């Protein structure tokens, strides 16, 4: 549908359309990749935590990275964002090789991450958390810091940007509270809003739903969808399959450090290799109904 009647869904359609002809194989090439990783490996002693031969992330789409515990999803995240150093491999972000680039520079290039264990800075107010996210601040330079007139105007701009984002995330009433006074779910929201202060091109969310109550889950999902509508690329790690199905345009499955399957959410969840990875080769019916839902039937 070139003329989508629903403008909010337009980017989703575009992403789904762009990915429609991509082969459903691990390491499949994408029409417009923002991130391309090649032979990235990370070993902890004898354990190979990550061994990704080739993977591409489509620009402007929401890609989910799923896999059983210990599959190496978070380690892969850490490697891509410069928080950990791989034993080998290279990865290009917007055509720029990021291997060996420190985390803060990766962030400045437009690839921003959040953490599985939320890192809201609890002794700072919500507003200060937000302001900290803004990039290119004059007042963050040592010598300029002492002279308020050098950064006062910029600070006002940053504050109004933070206020707008806080309103969008329904946290404006809490702007002067300490971040540590907020609930776990609100801290997740704050972390995401803070990441948006950097105007990222790609947002990497490490388990955005972990520890979030169902009431907040829905609004978090909407916020993630909105990121795509604003033209950002989202890559997220998640365990909640309903959520993965709901918001992702493409799913990459990892197990034992390798990418074992790729495809649109519904197809991937029917993939034999994926079911085996999650449940083992000899699972019986009883196991599939314990809450981990892979198929449409199990949902009902």
């Amino acid at each position: 549908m070139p003329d989508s009647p629903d403008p909010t869904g337009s980017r989703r359609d575009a992403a789904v359309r762009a990915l429609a002809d991509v082969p459903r194989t691990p390491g499949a090439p994408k029409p417009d990749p923002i991130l391309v990783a090649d032979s990235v490996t990370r070993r902890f002693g004898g354990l190979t935590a990550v061994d990704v031969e080739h993977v591409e992330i489509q620009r402007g789409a929401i890609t989910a990275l799923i896999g059983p515990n210990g599959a190496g999803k978070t380690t892969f995240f850490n490697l891509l964002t410069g928080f950990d150093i791989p034993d080998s491999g290279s990865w290009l972000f917007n055509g720029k090789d990021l291997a060996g680039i420190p985390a803060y520079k990766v962030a400045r290039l437009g690839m921003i991450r959040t953490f599985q264990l939320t890192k809201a800075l609890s002794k700072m107010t919500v507003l200060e958390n937000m302001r900290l996210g803004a990039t290119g601040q004059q007042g963050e330079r040592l010598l300029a810091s002492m002279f308020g007139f050098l950064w006062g105007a910029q600070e006002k701009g940053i504050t109004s940007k933070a206020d707008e984002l806080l309103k969008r995330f329904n946290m404006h009433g809490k702007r002067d509270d300490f971040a540590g006074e907020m609930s776990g779910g609100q801290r997740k929201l704050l972390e995401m809003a803070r990441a948006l202060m950097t105007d990222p091109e790609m947002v990497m969310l490490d388990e955005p739903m972990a520890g979030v109550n169902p009431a907040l889950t829905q609004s978090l999902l909407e916020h993630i969808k909105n990121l795509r509508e604003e033209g950002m690329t989202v890559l997220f790690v998640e365990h909640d399959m309903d959520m993965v199905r709901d918001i992702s345009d493409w799913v990459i499955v990892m197990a034992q450090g390798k990418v074992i399957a790729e495809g649109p959410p519904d197809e991937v969840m029917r993939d034999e290799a994926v079911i085996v990875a999650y449940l083992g080769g000899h699972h019986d019916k009883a196991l599939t109904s314990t809450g981990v839902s892979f198929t449409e039937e199990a949902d009902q």
Partner: protein
Amino acid sequence: MDWGYILSVMVTSAFGVEAIVFGLAAIGVNMQFGYTGLLNFGQSAFMAVGGYAVAVTVVELGLNFWIGVVIGLVVTVLLALLLGVPTLRLRADYLAIVTIAASEIVRLLVRSVTFKDFFGGSDGQQSFAGGFFAMSPLAQDLSLRIGPVVLNNRQIFVLIVGWGLVLLGCLVVWLMVRSPWGRVLKGIREDEDAVRSLGKNVYLYKMQSLIIGGLFGAIAGYVYAVGNEAVSPDFFGTDTTFFVYAIVILGGAARVFGPVLGTVIFWAVIQGTDVFLRSAIDIGVPVISLMNGTQAAVVRFMLVGLGIMLLMIFRPQGILGDRKELALDAR
């Protein structure tokens, strides 16, 4: 008991040269530990660099006092880089270990027999402050009497300049920590990975904080050297560093005036208990007079330790701190 005498001793120590020296050093530690979370256990090394820089420049090199001041600042920056480059990328505790070792290395170096001709060995260095006192606009015969204590014109000049430096230091720290730069430091104190993920060069900020705190240490060293018109190596031991930490915690970490309030109270209590115990022994107060004067000098530190323990139990945020802010840590 002569309460007037005890009180005047307390007042003169609360605002004396030692209070200034430890206050300036504490302002530096407050920047490092209070605002950035860096455990610099070698503040005495930075103080030694300051003190010895002016002493050696004047006495051994025969140069101007102010050249010594500049040399001290340069060496301080170099020392901070030397300590920070290998450790600031690692966890906080590595910096603590390296700095405490480095401060002992500095102390043993300046008191060593090998370098006696240069640093003066265990005697230290004397008579180098002439260049500083030449700046004094005060009359030669000026003197000030506070109870039994008489201050001459030199001492008054040191106190004026010293407290001026303390207030200037507080102003600089206040300007810095209220800025976006200070915000990054506070972020690093809580979770440096979060700050890193937002595109800030955490390593650079930690280095800047370490250097600035070290510079305050060096300035404290100048005041110490000038105020005593001498430097001796054994002042720069680890106990000096830990007095500085006691002062920061007492006043309230991450508060601009915390170190100032801390140093005033610390020295008033330390010297006040000393004269109190001594006069109590003199007039034969029961129990207390079981001690002699030497023992009393040690007991006052026990009392201060007890006081700090009680403070930590009932007011862990220090005198100026915010309890609410501290409680958030528990989550």
